[in-house]
């Protein structure tokens, strides 16, 4: 066993976690930054291709208040206005700070260039060319975090449980993936920055690490979740032909810069039928396009693969090349010539609006426990505006790190062996058995596949009570089924142990999403119910989920946070 001590433990080393570590360190805290993948490589930030919304106002007049209005409109009445306001106001500071760190924002005539994106009233989505925003941002933060002497960076350290003693966070328990050694960490404060839940869905656009860890750890530590019924489906995820070496949401930046047109399998534009705009206008928000494509599919007007056509055939090759030079070559190596053919797209799980409930200091209801980035709910309401996820990672990461350091400074460690015991016992029981997955080497892989299909089919873009109830019932059966599965006894890099813990988080998170979706009997933003097709003004509230004393999920309602 390995025991470590620190002021602030940051769980997850994507954009939010790295920013939290940097901010905690410059506010005089010692930090451990842990990721079950590799520092800055896992998570969602590195997958980002282009849009980072911030009201810089360099190109044309803009203000954070305008950005806030757009964010609140997209959120369909459910945004926590305080959090959204912080996001829009401080996005500007973070973008400038990263500019000082030479991230390389695209510029024209010396001014940082922003593009227009659906739902925005001003072109304000900054980026790094070409489709390189995520990797550039990840590299920039990785460099900054490496320069912070008081940050210990640990790759391949899986954190599974927060240790709470007498109602206060005192640290965490996990294991070193390389050799399966149990690791305990005494920490005065913990920042959960372990991202979202997209891996719960069969079609998803993020990394394999996004399996709901942050939500499940927060719930088990006694914190609240809100808005869990609102995973976002990105409408035009790549479907066919097979494309490798590219993020499936790559067509979004193409549409920002080049427009493009969507057709159903009959060759007809269709967005106008669902309240959107056709032709080359890329103005329709994500929830409406996802809904439209799914409806076209139900009506039998999609391709054999179940998608619609996205066409750039009317755009001259020279214009394509000016906008996306190296990417056009990558497409060519995949056998795709946009001047000659359409590509097929369909919705794909992309982001989660809901998450851990925090206040403006990113504190949860459990003293010492903080949240940051996609793991946090509230700022984006029922539907996130394009370009708000990356600034959310930066802004909330910076705040979580800063306030966690403030909380930790001057406090004593409160580590409790007693509090850690049940977590260490579970790890010991899972790693100590001398059987190979009950003889079924694929038991965990198959459970993952079943959960992803179940969530996609029954808790996906279009929902009904019948489908949701069936999903909830099955998820509740799967939880004890998982308890009965044993990981293999390999000591080094044991992915079955990781699968087991990942599924433990995923099943609790899946149950949260299904339960919240059943309770919301209306259609709003990313939550679309076929049995309740209209928005219901009486449900303009946030739904809170908690674990009760018996470990059962319970929900109640909170009025939406309004700006003071």
């Amino acid at each position, binding site marked *: 066993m390995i025991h470590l001590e620190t002021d602030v433990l940051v769980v997850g080393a994507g954009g939010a976690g790295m920013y939290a570590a940097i901010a905690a360190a410059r506010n005089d805290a010692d930090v451990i930054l842990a990721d079950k993948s590799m520092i800055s490589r896992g998570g969602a930030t*590195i997958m980002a291709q282009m849009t980072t919304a911030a009201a810089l106002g360099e190109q044309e007049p803009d203000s954070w208040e305008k950005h806030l209005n757009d964010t609140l409109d997209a959120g369909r009445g459910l945004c926590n206005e305080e959090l959204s306001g912080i996001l829009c106001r401080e996005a500007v500071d973070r973008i400038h700070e990263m500019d000082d760190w030479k991230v390389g924002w695209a510029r024209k005539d010396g001014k940082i260039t922003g593009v227009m994106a659906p739902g925005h009233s001003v072109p304000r989505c900054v980026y790094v060319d070409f489709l390189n925003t995520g990797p550039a941002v990840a590299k920039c933060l990785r460099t900054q975090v490496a320069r912070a002497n008081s940050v210990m960076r640990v790759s391949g350290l899986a954190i599974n449980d927060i240790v709470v003693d007498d109602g206060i966070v005192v640290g965490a328990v996990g294991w070193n993936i390389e050799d399966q050694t149990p690791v305990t960490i005494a920490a005065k404060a913990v920042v959960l920055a372990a991202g979202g839940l997209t891996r719960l869905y069969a079609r998803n656009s993020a990394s394999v690490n996004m399996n709901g860890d942050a939500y499940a750890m927060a719930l088990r530590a006694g914190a609240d979740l809100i808005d869990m019924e609102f995973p976002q489906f990105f409408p035009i995820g790549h479907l066919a032909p097979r494309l490798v070496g590219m993020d499936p949401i790559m067509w979004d930046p193409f549409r920002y810069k080049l427009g493009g047109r969507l057709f159903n399998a009959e060759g007809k534009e269709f967005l106008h039928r669902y309240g959107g705009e056709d032709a080359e206008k890329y103005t329709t928000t994500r929830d409406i396009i996802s809904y439209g494509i799914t409806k076209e599919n139900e009506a039998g007007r999609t391709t054999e693969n179940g998608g619609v056509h996205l066409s750039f055939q009317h755009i001259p090759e020279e214009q394509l090349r000016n906008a996306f030079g190296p990417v056009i070559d990558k497409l060519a190596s995949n056998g795709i010539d946009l001047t000659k053919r359409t590509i097929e797209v369909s919705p794909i799980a992309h982001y989660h609006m809901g998450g851990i409930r925090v206040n403006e200091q990113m504190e949860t209801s459990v003293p010492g426990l903080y949240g940051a980035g996609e793991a946090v709910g509230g700022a984006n309401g029922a539907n996130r505006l394009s370009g708000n996820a990356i600034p959310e990672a930066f802004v909330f990461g910076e705040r979580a790190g800063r306030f966690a350091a403030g909380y930790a400074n001057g406090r004593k460690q409160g580590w409790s062996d007693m509090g850690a015991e049940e977590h260490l016992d579970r790890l010991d029981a899972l790693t100590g058995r001398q059987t190979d997955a009950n003889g079924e080497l694929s038991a965990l892989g198959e459970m993952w596949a079943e959960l992803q299909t179940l969530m996609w089919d029954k808790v996906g873009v279009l929902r009904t009570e019948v489908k949701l109830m069936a999903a909830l019932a099955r998820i509740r059966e799967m939880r004890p089924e998982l308890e009965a599965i044993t990981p293999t006894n390999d000591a080094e*890099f044991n992915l079955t142990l990781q699968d087991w813990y990942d599924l433990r988080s995923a099943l609790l998170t899946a149950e949260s999403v299904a339960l919240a979706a059943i309770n919301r009997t209306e259609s709003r933003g990313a939550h679309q119910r076929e049995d309740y097709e209209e928005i219901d003004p009486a449900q303009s509230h946030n739904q809170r989920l908690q674990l009760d004393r018996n470990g059962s999920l319970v929900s109640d309602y909170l009025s939406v946070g309004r700006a003071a």
Partner: protein
Amino acid sequence: MSTQPKSVAVTIQRGAPGVEGHTETFDVPYREGMSVLDAVVWIRTNVDSSIAFRYSCVNANACKECMVSVNGKTEYACTARLSTESTTVGPLTNKTLIRDLVTDIVPPKENLRAILAARDGG
């Protein structure tokens, strides 16, 4: 036009330090354009989840964690197209083997054992 195979043989090199290595061959359903990563993920999901393999970003070539040896050539599993004939996937040969397809590509400053050794030694 060439006909596509229904499935292809994918051989995985397995082993750990101090243990004699061996190979296992799996019959993987073939889909046009699939990657070596797709094949390894299919095997882990449907046949043997105990294969050690490092990846994070799923076919986007963003995380750069999935570098392995494919038929003797160093490649990213996510961008290497699966051959319609046969494919052997092994660990990188110029890095320390951890297990199966996983090698030690983590910088020492981010590796817990190396951090502790440096701290205790210094």
